[in-house]
């Protein structure tokens, strides 16, 4: 609960800060619209040559695209800016300021930054999911929707864990400028159901970089593909990964010596 309170506090301060720069909203709106337009063009192109991709229809793939956009919005709004700042501060030795606060350090480094204009992607992703779901043949019930939302939250937690593990690497490898490029590249794989990738890549994209759990699995929930074993595996995996992340963060933190003071 304490963590949520702190998160909310930082969120309010961050939002007030960002609200000063309203023109950025329109820049973001334009960029999101352009990215969405191209993504739809690509989908149309794919389906002009085929009627289904590995068993997924065009509407179903629209759902996958929507989830990827929405998840991308969450990552860019709340996860990536924090992790980027963490990496920079480890490099510059400024992390002292976060560590000396009388709260849990992991909570602090995870909630300090918020880029609210990225919410545009969350909303447009939501709209795309809605359009996709309305084109799907099977009926989507209340249970499906609730499972879907639960799995989305689980997915966000998994991606957060992934980012924090990588960022903790900054305690050993100082130069990490490539990290956002690397993540952006790999994150694009989520635009397609991971079933289409060859085995080695599919497993990497499930357990190494949890994109399968974060995007394809929620999409399965609203396209009548989900098996309950998948849900169990996803929950267990999330718990284990969260525990590991916490341990790894503390382990890395012990290497931090500071440079500024």
């Amino acid at each position: 609960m304490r963590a949520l309170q702190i998160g909310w506090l930082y969120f309010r301060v961050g939002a007030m800060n960002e609200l000063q720069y309203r023109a950025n909203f329109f820049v973001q709106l334009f960029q999101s619209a352009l990215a969405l337009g191209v993504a739809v063009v690509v989908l149309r192109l794919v389906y002009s040559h085929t009627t289904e991709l590995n068993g997924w229809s065009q509407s179903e793939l629209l759902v996958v695209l929507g989830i990827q956009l929405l998840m991308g919005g969450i990552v860019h709004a709340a996860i990536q800016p924090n992790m980027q700042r963490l990496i920079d501060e480890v490099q510059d030795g400024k992390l002292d300021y976060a560590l000396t606060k009388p709260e849990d350090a992991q909570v602090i480094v995870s909630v300090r930054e918020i880029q609210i204009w990225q919410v545009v992607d969350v909303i447009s992703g939501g709209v795309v999911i809605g359009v996709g779901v309305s084109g799907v043949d099977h009926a989507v019930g209340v249970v499906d929707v609730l499972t879907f939302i639960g799995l989305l939250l689980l997915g966000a937690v998994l991606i957060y864990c992934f980012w924090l593990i990588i960022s903790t690497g900054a305690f050993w490898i100082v130069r990490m400028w490539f990290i956002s490029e690397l993540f952006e590249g790999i994150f694009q794989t989520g635009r397609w159901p991971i079933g289409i990738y060859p085995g080695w890549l599919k497993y990497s994209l499930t357990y190494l970089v949890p994109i399968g759990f974060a995007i394809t699995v929620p999409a399965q929930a609203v396209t009548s593909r989900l098996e309950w074993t998948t849900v169990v595996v996803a929950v267990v995996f999330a718990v284990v990964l969260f525990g590991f992340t916490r341990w790894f963060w503390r382990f890395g933190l012990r290497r931090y010596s500071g440079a500024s003071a």
Partner: protein
Amino acid sequence: MTVAATPVREESRLRSMADFYATTIRTAIQTEFQYRAATYMYMLGMVAEPVIYLVVWSTIARSQGGSVAGLTPGDFAAYYIVWTLVRNMNIVFTPYGWEHRIREGQFSGLLLRPLHPIHYDIAQFAGGKVVWVLFYLPIAVGLTIAFKPTLHVSPLEVAVFLVAIWGAYLIRTMNLWLLGMVSFWTTRASAIFQTYMMAELLLSGRLVPLKLMPGWAQSLAAWLPFKWTFYFPIQALVGDLSTASLAGGLGMQALWTAIGSVLVWLFFRASIKRYTAVGN
């Protein structure tokens, strides 16, 4: 007192230019070699893009009974593996870097030097490529093992390819310089950059081999420089182009490089008057 400037002879000008390029390229190679791990990680992120396209189109080809628009999974593998090499060659100074360069006043230093600043970028990135391509080769081997491309090349195709990747490099350098210089005029150029990138993605062969695009898009692409930076170099190696189209392609690359150079020269003269820097 005035001193008549001794006219520099053409020959020694050329020699000093060659000297400049050799030195800058050598320095760039040494710099790039220092950050091997970071370069590799960056490349892994880059390789994700063609792998996605490759997997998607191979899946479609298989579901359509083995080929789509005459291209088999093996053809797609060849296309996108060569794509990666061409993409490496296509990395140039980005417009986003321009924004930074101008805002931070870094341009002042470049302007004080005796050569047109574009030479520094060309030489610098040319040097980086030597290292990137070297690093890329193991990744290419890995991709070849994983995706089994079908590739038959003739010595002529290899020769044209080796020239064409440098042609692509020059065209893209000019294009992105033109785009970057927009930052002299406005600080909110990122929307323009993004629009350009999207047009390039769709019309260059970066997303898919152009023959998978609808007819009108292919006709449009014929009038734009984009396809000469991706599609042509890749096709030179993996496609079965006639000798005439290979030569014609190189000619088009030369033409677009020339057009780009003239535009850069004109636009730079107009833009530089707007440059102001504080400090430095």
